[in-house]
């Protein structure tokens, strides 16, 4: 059975990187915020959250945080994801699924091109 002690290798690898990052301005952090209230969860927010975690880990993206929030008041548009890139206006994606999540990471987070087809403005 795998145990928490097995995390040592990850810890040793990460500690150096974390120290480097702590010296950077916290404002340079990109945040991916997934709505995780009852409405979001029942619409499929959990696999979306986990897909973002997988993509950020697999691509070794630094300074990208996946986090969650409560109900944003637009339950019919869930799963809703907000992407905050430093220095840019926050962007709100709606009806996100794991496929769209992967595209958001590749196009928006990595390459800086907002996925306009999933934006709230065009799809409401």
């Amino acid at each position, binding site marked *: 059975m795998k145990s928490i002690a097995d995390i040592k290798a990850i810890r040793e690898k990460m500690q150096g990187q974390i120290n480097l990052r702590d010296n950077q301005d916290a404002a340079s952090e990109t945040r991916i915020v997934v709505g995780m209230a009852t409405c979001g969860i*029942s619409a499929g927010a959990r696999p979306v959250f986990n897909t973002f975690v997988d993509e950020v880990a697999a691509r070794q993206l630094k300074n990208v945080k996946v986090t969650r929030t409560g109900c944003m008041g637009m339950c019919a548009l869930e799963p809703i994801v907000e992407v905050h890139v430093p220095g840019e206006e926050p962007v709100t994606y709606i009806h996100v699924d794991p496929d769209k999540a992967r595209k958001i990471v590749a196009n928006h987070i990595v390459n800086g091109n907002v996925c306009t087809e999933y934006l709230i403005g065009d799809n409401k």
Partner: protein
Amino acid sequence: MRELALNILDICENSVKAGASLVRVSVAAADDLLTIEIADDGCGMDAEFLKRVTDPFTTTRTTRKVGMGIPLFKMAAEMAGGSFSVTSAKGVGTTVRATFVLSHIDRAPLGDLADTVVTLIGGECPSEFRFEVSVEGKGFVFDTRELKAELGGVPVSEPEVLVFVRDMIKENMIDIGGETL
């Protein structure tokens, strides 16, 4: 909600919002009965709110007037021949307990508990979690306080840490025969 693990995620979010410092989740399957308990030391509810907490028109959020989390969990339990209870005291905490007849045709599957754990401990989560899972006497424990001690300052919310935790819980679930619950 298609999985009980999604209900667990949903109820745990309530505990986080209640300012709990520790949330204890127990999932136990034995003798054709599945028992899920979520106990926190958050702000708790007064007797008046507790009385109407299973009413879908009771909620603490301000964006809408409905709150489906507790009613959906209650429905899932009662549909599967089980029982449901919420006990709470202001300033002490809240315990939500649901039981399910394992072999009942209408029982929802437990689903992906590892994904639920990762979703809860990822992001900015001020609460500690302790998960105890057992199937017919075989079990495992996952505690974020133990994880943090092992991590020595590396944040739990690091995606690589989360992926490790998910794989670990998935493996442990298979080892105790819980993946088919």
